[in-house]
């Protein structure tokens, strides 16, 4: 996945919509902020996700953090390899470290999220 072509939520999830399906992940910035990842809890196939609502959590030594759905839809696939070994997320957040694939309610929803440039600007200002 090319990070430059993804859309981003303010809570650092990325989304890649193709046709009616979206791949959802967590940005490298967020992963680097978390550090020392321990576990990840992901939803099940068939679960409904609602944009802006929590759909799982990622726990590090330091803290527990909710994962928020960037768009609404139904879970069609879960990254089981990641659920078994959360280190994959640290190593490869934009490819092997994807979280879930969802059948989106409205593919246009992703257009409302930040593009890469807007997201980079946001994290640069948050970092101070």
């Amino acid at each position, binding site marked *: 996945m090319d990070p430059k072509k993804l859309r981003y939520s303010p809570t650092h999830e990325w989304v890649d919509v193709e046709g009616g399906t979206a791949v959802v992940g967590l940005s490298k910035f967020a992963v680097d902020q978390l*550090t*020392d990842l*321990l*576990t990840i809890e992901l939803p099940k196939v068939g679960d409904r996700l609602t944009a802006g609502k929590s759909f799982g959590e990622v*726990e590090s*030594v*330091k803290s*527990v953090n909710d994962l928020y759905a960037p768009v609404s839809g139904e879970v069609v696939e879960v990254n089981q390899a990641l659920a078994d070994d959360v280190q994959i997320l640290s190593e490869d957040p934009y490819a092997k470290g994807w979280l879930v694939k969802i059948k989106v309610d409205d593919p246009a929803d992703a257009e409302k999220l930040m593009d890469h440039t807007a997201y980079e600007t946001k994290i640069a200002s948050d970092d101070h």
Partner: protein
Amino acid sequence: MADPTALKTPLFDWHQANGGRMVDFAGWSMPVQYTSIVEEHQAVRRGVGLFDVSHMGRLAFDGAKALDWINLVATNDAAKLEAGRIQYSLLANDLGGLIDDILVYRLAKGYYVVCNASNRERVVAQFQEHREGFKAALSDRTADTAMIAVQGPSAAATVQAISSVTFDGLKYYHATEAKLLDGVAALVSRTGYTGEDGFELIVPAADAAKVWIGLMDAGAPFGVVPCGLGARDTLRFEAAMPLYGHELTDTTSPFAAGVGWAVKLDKGDFVGAEALRQQAQSPGSTRVGLKLEGKRIARQGSSVTSDDRSLGLVTSGTFAPTLQASLAMALIDPEFAAPGKKVVVDVRGKPEPAEVVPLPFYKRPRPQSQT
């Protein structure tokens, strides 16, 4: 966003320039980590790490009655201290709860008390409230000094490299005055909060950066890294050292928390003595170690049960980097305190099976010949 009123230690600029992630802690802006809590933790277990602990309160006591004053307010018996020795002690309230845990240093002249940053004002207030006309003076030296902890198996070699005097004979919980680098006056103690060999250095605030950089250079052959509050917490946790606000609180009995040994009921009257005498008979709960089956962390406040019977609460929990397990400390019903007992911990709504295990979780492999 950072609190603009947060206090800064003399090393604040160094932390910011060197990747320290600054957080507000007890009114101070402190680094929680530089790279990774686990990496910093392992550096201390294997080599050496530096911690800025300048946020800790440093109070100097002088005068003929300084000892009487300290012995009235703190629970341990400071009269037993010889010059150059350090003692762990507690400040209790009238009900036998804890105001803070402290270290009392007896110096060649006078005493020194190191207390928690979060409690410094309460500690000073407690001493002032029980002044009782003692001929003694308390001066808060926190702002004009800095404190650096050097911890790990290579701590001694690191500190030695910046001093002309030898620390070979400096035993655990002893302190000495020394000159560092080109003559910086330091109070050097063999103390720490990590479960490893280590030192804490109190130096003038103006010299703090120079000493810190000197230690970073001296520790380079041993893989020295700067460490934040995150690693400080996981290290003290593995060593089962209590942390105020977690294992120790306003309403926790020192006998339940496992620090009753620092309460000397036979030393004469002191604040909280009457309540503590009663607690000593039946503390109500006991501090235990728990090992969870899964990796999720049982953080402070998680409830501990057995067959739906409430046993108590988790005081601290983390994923222990050295032991590679999700561990917790909890204050629970003494009936369930025996290692091997099976309990259930509620981790954010999900029951997680756990077993009572002995404390401390971690003991350094070969304690050096210190007493």
